[in-house]
């Protein structure tokens, strides 16, 4: 028979103000198996913890129940205390008599006291049947995979590689650089993007710890955190995927037409894709973004007028040097930027703010005015969101120094007429309708997840939001982790971001990877599911029920097995199993029935 000690906390008056703690202690002392029971003002304080340690020594306790606040608050604290006193931490349990009793039954002290006694009794029953457990140790492969070779992926790869760990960098296109490859000068100081990028690419290519695979895609992922098996196909071409070759048409036409994306000829590809398999410990997903196709925006020309272009097309013009409109190569004298083209439009397109447009439009308008000083730049906007160091001042400079005319109001229609592009809008600040006969219209189209991001997410078993952006584990406190252990997120793959934010998140993801790699081995909580091989009929219902992909069929035996590193102990398999072959450690069916006994 286990010798259990019960420690009832007052939590000042939080508990003792409602519950008669003395009576609880008196009643619990009589309960079978209870060798010791006491109460104290603050059990989590140093003297409170000392009290537990002394009682364990004096009465030879081998099980501890602390009746106090939620286990989310102090389970870790009291399990440490128990371990220090020589009691297995998994034989130490919390009875929550604060959040679930004293706080919610303040007007019923009598009933609250009775509920507290019953609750403590259930936990005593649980401890009686608890097994002494030890955390698992799992081996850890200290090699990282970075998916995406844009600024996010390269930043993360360099940080991890600099710390001395090998990195496999997989890029879908033929070259590293991602979207930043298409950009001209960057906002705030007009740093030349190509120069910054070339330095980064050179650092990545020359790094002894980084293996770069271009024209490559992750085709399969197996295993779990610390022990992933990744198959990468090099020379792989996703159906419909396109290779963008910036500036390629400039030389032929003499006009800096925005080079459209073009399909790479199959002959130029490696005809037989090679597949490589890697053992990987952690993964950084940095697949970036695409722009909403102009063809989606019927009211803005539906992609048909040649002089209605998107932000990246204008970037490529700027990078090419001269600004000439696609239709006839003339220098445009009246240029209109349309912000929120497809963003902040819950009815028709994307409800979210694409975040980067306000700033890049200000930059493009300034760059235009620098090259065409006698031209007129108009920007239609709903709100200007310039949140960042120096960002607001930059936008104000566009207005006051470069005379960019900002018009507050969403553009209603863009159409071609007599070789010009007509823009119907309104200036809500004066309440006047505005019509501009423009030479060139630049749509700041919505930022959307990179093509194929959803498929990749499925292969990685990582969740995405409704738009296909990778979901972070917690919107505020865990913004660089996915919900799948060992897979981290960087850059616009998670949500639209500009370069500084992308670099910050990529550095954060790299730090998380390094934190994982700094461990000797991985430690896993032992309170997870297990399968009784004698009872398991191999029906596979648990495999389907498991939300963490932790259940698989045995490679040759007709039974299901638990991948211990992936199991989160949720219990879905226990419910699904028709044979009661699935159980959770320290939450067995027998235990649950015993726990129900005192309250029936």
């Amino acid at each position: 028979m286990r010798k259990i000690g019960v420690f009832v906390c007052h939590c000042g008056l939080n508990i003792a103000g409602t519950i008669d703690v003395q009576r609880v202690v008196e009643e619990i002392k009589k309960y079978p198996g209870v060798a010791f029971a006491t109460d104290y003002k603050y059990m989590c304080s140093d003297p409170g913890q000392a009290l537990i340690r002394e009682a364990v020594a004096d009465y030879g306790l081998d099980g501890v129940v602390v009746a106090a606040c939620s286990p989310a608050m102090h389970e870790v604290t009291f399990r440490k205390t128990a371990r220090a006193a020589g009691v297995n931490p998994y034989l130490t349990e919390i009875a929550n008599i604060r959040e679930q009793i004293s706080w919610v039954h303040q007007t019923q002290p009598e009933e609250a006291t009775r509920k507290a006694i019953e609750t403590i009794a259930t936990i005593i029953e649980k401890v009686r049947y608890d097994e002494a457990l030890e955390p698992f140790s799992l081996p850890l492969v200290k090699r990282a995979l970075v998916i995406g070779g844009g600024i996010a992926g390269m930043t993360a790869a360099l940080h991890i590689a600099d710390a001395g760990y090998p990195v496999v960098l997989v890029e879908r296109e033929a070259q590293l650089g991602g979207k930043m490859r298409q950009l001209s000068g960057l906002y705030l100081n007009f740093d030349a993007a190509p120069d910054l990028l070339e330095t980064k690419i050179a650092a990545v290519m020359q790094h002894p710890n980084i293996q770069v695979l271009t024209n490559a895609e992750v085709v399969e992922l197996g295993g779990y955190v610390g022990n992933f098996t990744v198959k990468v196909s090099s020379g792989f071409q996703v159906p419909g995927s396109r290779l963008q070759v910036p500036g390629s048409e400039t030389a032929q036409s003499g006009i800096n037409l925005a080079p459209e994306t073009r399909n790479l000829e199959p002959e130029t590809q490696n005809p037989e894709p090679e597949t490589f398999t890697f053992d990987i410990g952690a993964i950084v997903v940095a697949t970036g973004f695409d722009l909403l196709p102009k063809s989606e925006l019927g009211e803005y020309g539906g992609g048909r007028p040649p002089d209605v272009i998107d932000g990246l097309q204008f970037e490529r013009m700027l990078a090419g040097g001269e600004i000439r409109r696609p239709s006839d190569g003339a220098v445009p004298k009246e240029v209109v930027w349309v912000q929120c083209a497809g963003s902040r439009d819950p009815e028709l397109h994307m409800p979210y703010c694409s975040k980067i447009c306000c700033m890049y439009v200000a930059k493009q308008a300034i760059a235009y005015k620098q090259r065409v000083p006698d031209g007129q730049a108009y920007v239609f906007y709903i709100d200007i969101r310039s949140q960042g160091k120096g960002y607001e001042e930059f936008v104000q400079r566009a207005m006051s120094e470069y005379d960019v005319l900002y018009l507050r109001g969403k553009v209603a229609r863009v159409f071609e007429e007599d070789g010009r592009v007509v823009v119907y809008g309104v200036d809500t600040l004066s309440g006047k309708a505005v019509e501009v006969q423009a030479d060139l219209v630049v749509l700041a189209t919505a930022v959307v997840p990179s093509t194929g991001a959803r498929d990749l997410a499925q292969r990685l078993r990582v969740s995405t939001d409704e738009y296909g952006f990778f979901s972070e584990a917690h919107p505020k406190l865990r913004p660089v982790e996915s919900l799948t252990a060992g897979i981290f997120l960087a850059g616009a793959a998670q949500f639209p971001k500009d370069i500084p934010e992308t670099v910050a998140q990529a550095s954060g993801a790299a730090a998380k990877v390094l934190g994982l790699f700094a461990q000797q081995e991985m430690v896993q909580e032992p309170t997870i599911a297990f399968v009784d091989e004698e009872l398991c009929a191999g029906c596979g219902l648990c495999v389907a029920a498991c939300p963490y992909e932790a259940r698989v069929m045995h490679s040759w035996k007709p039974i299901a097995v638990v991948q211990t590193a992936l199991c989160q102990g949720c219990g879905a398999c226990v419910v699904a199993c028709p044979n009661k072959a699935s159980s959770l450690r320290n939450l067995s069916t027998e235990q649950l029935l015993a726990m129900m006994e005192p309250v029936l």
Partner: protein
Amino acid sequence: MPNTSFSEIIQTRSGEPLHTCYFCQKCTAGCPVAYAMDYKPAQVVRLILLGRRDTLLRSNAPWLCVGCDTCGARCPNDIYLAPVMDVLKEMALEAGLAPAEKKVYALHQSFLDSIKLWGRTHELSMLMEYKLRAVDLFTDLDLGLRLMLKGKIALLPERVKDLERVRALYRRVGR
């Protein structure tokens, strides 16, 4: 569209940096006469930047502005609208347009005539001129009478000592 030279001219003549305007509407919110204006002070700035010359030169806002400078004192970008309103009034007259508020214009003229004549205002003659110019003979007569009985309105004008220097100012602006 837009007539950028129009906004350039106004900014040069008034010396006010209209391009820095946030359109936060603080000027409109504080203006004591905005309620009577067809375009509120911030809208006037907006229309200037949009180059709406004709709209503005026919607007009553410049004529109703009392020049109290509350707008400029509160503006986050240090824009004072009274000088801007003055430029708009001048441009309207230069363009040969009838002032949108005839009585205000009549008062301005009567005031200037009085100064030209005496070197300072003589309320009685100034107001008589105003009433003739504005064709408004009876408004506030009772008030004027009460002020006179209390000796607040001098019957005879007083001339400043160095009237010639005042007259020189008038000659400089061709009046």
